[in-house]
C-alpha cells in the first residue's frame, strides 16, 4: 500500500531518507561524514532457492575506485541491482552515506540521491543526438510539470561543458547517438551519468567489446573520474583492472572471496582455485 501511495505522490518524496518526519533537519544529499559512501551489510538475495548474494558485506570509502571481479554467476550484476533498487535484498541492509536506506527507495529516488549506473550493454537514446542525450539527463527536477518548460539552467550548461570535455565527444554533439561507435556510446552513457553530478558511479563492464585504444581511453576516463567521484567498476578485463585499480574485491557464489590489491588477490589460493584457474 505504501508503494501505491508513493506512486501517487501522496507519500514523502524521499521515502528512504532517515530522520524525515521526526523533526530533524533534512540532510542535503548523501552524508559521507564517516568517510564511507556505501554500506552493504549482510546482504542476501534469494531467487527461490538460489542464493544470488549470500551474506555479503561490502564498504566503499568515499573517493575510492573499487573493482569487482568474479566468475559468471558470482552475483556482480545482482549486487548492482541491489544498490540501484532494482532488486530488494531478502536480508541485510544497504545504505548510501549515513542517511539513504537504499532498500526502501525506488530506482528513480536512488538516481536522484546521487548514484549513477552504466549498464553492461551500452544504453543511449539512439534516435537523439549526443547533445540531446546529455540534455535529457540534465534537469535536476525531472517531473512532468517541469518538462512543459524548456529552459537550460546555467548550472546545466556548465555540467554539459564539463561532461563533454571528459568524455571527449565535443565534435559529435550533433550526431545521432545511434551512429556512434560502440566505445563512443559507452562514453556517452557515462557522460549522461556525469550530467546528474552523481557521487557514486557504478560501471558494469565498461570495456567489454572495446578496441585496445578505446580500452586505454576508458581507463584514462576512469582515473579522471576518480578525482571527484566514488567509483565501483565490474570488469573481466584484467589488464584494464591492473591499470585503474587500487583495491579489488573478488566475488564468488554470492560472497566475497578475497579483497586487496590486484596482486594480492591474484596470489590468493582461493581465488586461483575458484576463479583464475591454475
Amino acid at each position, binding site marked *: 500500500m505504501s508503494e501505491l501511495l508513493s506512486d501517487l505522490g501522496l507519500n514523502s518524496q524521499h521515502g528512504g531518507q532517515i530522520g524525515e518526519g521526526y523533526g530533524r533537519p533534512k540532510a542535503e544529499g548523501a552524508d559521507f561524514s564517516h568517510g564511507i559512501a556505501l554500506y552493504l551489510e549482510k546482504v542476501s538475495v534469494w531467487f527461490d532457492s538460489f542464493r544470488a548474494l549470500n551474506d555479503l558485506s561490502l564498504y566503499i570509502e568515499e573517493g575510492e575506485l573499487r573493482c569487482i571481479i568474479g566468475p559468471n554467476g558470482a552475483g556482480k550484476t545482482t549486487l548492482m541491482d541491489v544498490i540501484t533498487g532494482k532488486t530488494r535484498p531478502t536480508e541485510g541492509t544497504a545504505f548510501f552515506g549515513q542517511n539513504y536506506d537504499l532498500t526502501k527507495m525506488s*530506482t528513480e529516488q536512488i538516481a536522484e540521491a546521487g548514484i549513477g549506473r552504466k549498464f553492461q550493454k551500452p544504453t543511449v537514446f539512439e534516435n537523439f543526438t549526443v547533445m540531446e542525450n546529455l540534455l535529457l539527463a540534465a534537469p535536476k527536477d*525531472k517531473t512532468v510539470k517541469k518538462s512543459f*518548460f524548456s529552459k537550460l539552467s546555467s548550472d546545466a550548461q556548465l555540467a554539459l561543458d564539463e561532461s563533454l570535455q571528459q568524455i571527449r565527444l565535443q565534435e559529435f554533439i550533433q550526431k545521432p547517438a545511434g551512429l556512434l561507435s560502440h566505445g563512443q556510446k559507452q562514453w556517452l552513457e557515462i557522460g549522461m551519468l556525469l550530467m*546528474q553530478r552523481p557521487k557514486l558511479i557504478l560501471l558494469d563492464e565498461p570495456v567489454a567489446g572495446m578496441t585496445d585504444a578505446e580500452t586505454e581511453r576508458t581507463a584514462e576516463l576512469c582515473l579522471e573520474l576518480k578525482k571527484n567521484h566514488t567509483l565501483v567498476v565490474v570488469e573481466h578485463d584484467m589488464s584494464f583492472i591492473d591499470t585503474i585499480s587500487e583495491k579489488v574485491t573478488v566475488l564468488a557464489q554470492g560472497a566475497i572471496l578475497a579483497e586487496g590489491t590486484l596482486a594480492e588477490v591474484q596470489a590468493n589460493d582461493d581465488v586461483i582455485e575458484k576463479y583464475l584457474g591454475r
Partner: protein
Amino acid sequence: MKITSLLSDKPYSAIAIAVCFAVMLILPWFHVLPQDSALHLSAYWVTLIGKIMCLALVALALDLVWGYAGILSLGHGLYFALGGYAFGMYLMRESAGEQLPDFMRFLSWTELPWYWVGTQHFLWALALVILVPGVIAFIFGFFAFRSKIKGVYFSIITQAMTFAAALLFFRNETGFGGNNGFTGFKTIIGMDITSASMRATLCFLTALVLLLSFIGLRSLMNKPYGRVLGAIRDSENRLQYLGYRTLWYKLSAWVLSAVIAGVAGALYVPQAGIINPSEMNPVNSIEMAVWVAAGGRGTLIGPILGAGLINGVKTYFTVAYPEIWLLILGALFIVVTIFLPKGVIGLLERFKKEDH
C-alpha cells in the same frame, strides 16, 4: 517565433499545412449558401468532411501515445465511443424533453439511472466528454503502467478493454440503448441539429479543434516533455536510472490522448446522427492504428493525412465496390508496412531529398 513554425519546421510544409487547414475551416460555410448556388456544398459532403476530421483527431491522439511514447493502443475506439456516448446522453435528453429517452420508455423504466442525472445540461455533458474518457484512461493506465505492462501485452489488454466495453454497452440493462445505441437527435441547445447553419458550425468546430490540438501537441512535443516521451520509446529503463519517473510521463500522455479521442467522439456523434456499441468494435480501433501507420508515426501531421486519405478511399470504395473494400484495406496495410515504413510523410520526404 514565426507563426509558420507553429505548423512545421520547414516553411514550405508550414504553408501547405496552413492552406489545408484554411480550406477545412472555410469549406463548411459553403453549406450555408442557397441550394441553387453553384458553390453550395451538400449536406452529404459537409457531414462527411466533418466526420473524417473527427477520425483524423483520433489518429492525432493515437500518434501521441504510439508515435512518441511507443505505446500502441488497439483500443482507442473505446475512448472515442465514451466521448460520443457522453455527448449522446445530452442529445437524447434534449430530444426527449421532459420525458425519459425513448429506449428507456420501451423498457418501461420509470426513472433515470443515477448516471444520467444532470445530462440535460449542455455544460455538464461537455464536462463528461472530458471526464469519462480521462478518468477511465487514468485508472486503467495507472495500473497497467505501474505493473510495467508493455508492448504487445499492453496492446492486447487495450483491445480486450474495448471489446469488454462493447459487450457491456450491448446490454439493454446498462442504460445506454443496447445495440441500437442513441439516435433520433433533434436539437443542440435548442437549435435544429439538421439545419444548414448547425451542420456548418459542427464541421467548422471540428476543423478548429483539430487545428488547435495539432498546434498544441506540436508545441508540447518540442518541449522537453516530448523528448522524454521519445526517450521512453527508445529505452525506458535508462530513463528511470537517470531519475525520471516514467510512470507519470506515460500516464499523462495516455490520459491526454484518451481525452482528445473522447472530444473527437463527441464531435462525431451529432454529425453522424448515431452512436452504438459497434464503435467499440476492436476492428475500428485497429483501423485507427492503420491510419497512423499509413500517414507516418511520430509526425502528428502524418496521422491526420493518413486518416483523411484512407477514409476518403474507404468512402469511395464502400459505395462503388463494397465487396472488395476489406481486401483493399488489407493490401494497403501490407504495402505501407513493406514499402512505406514511415508512411506517406516518409514518402514525401524521400521525394524532396531526390529533388536536391
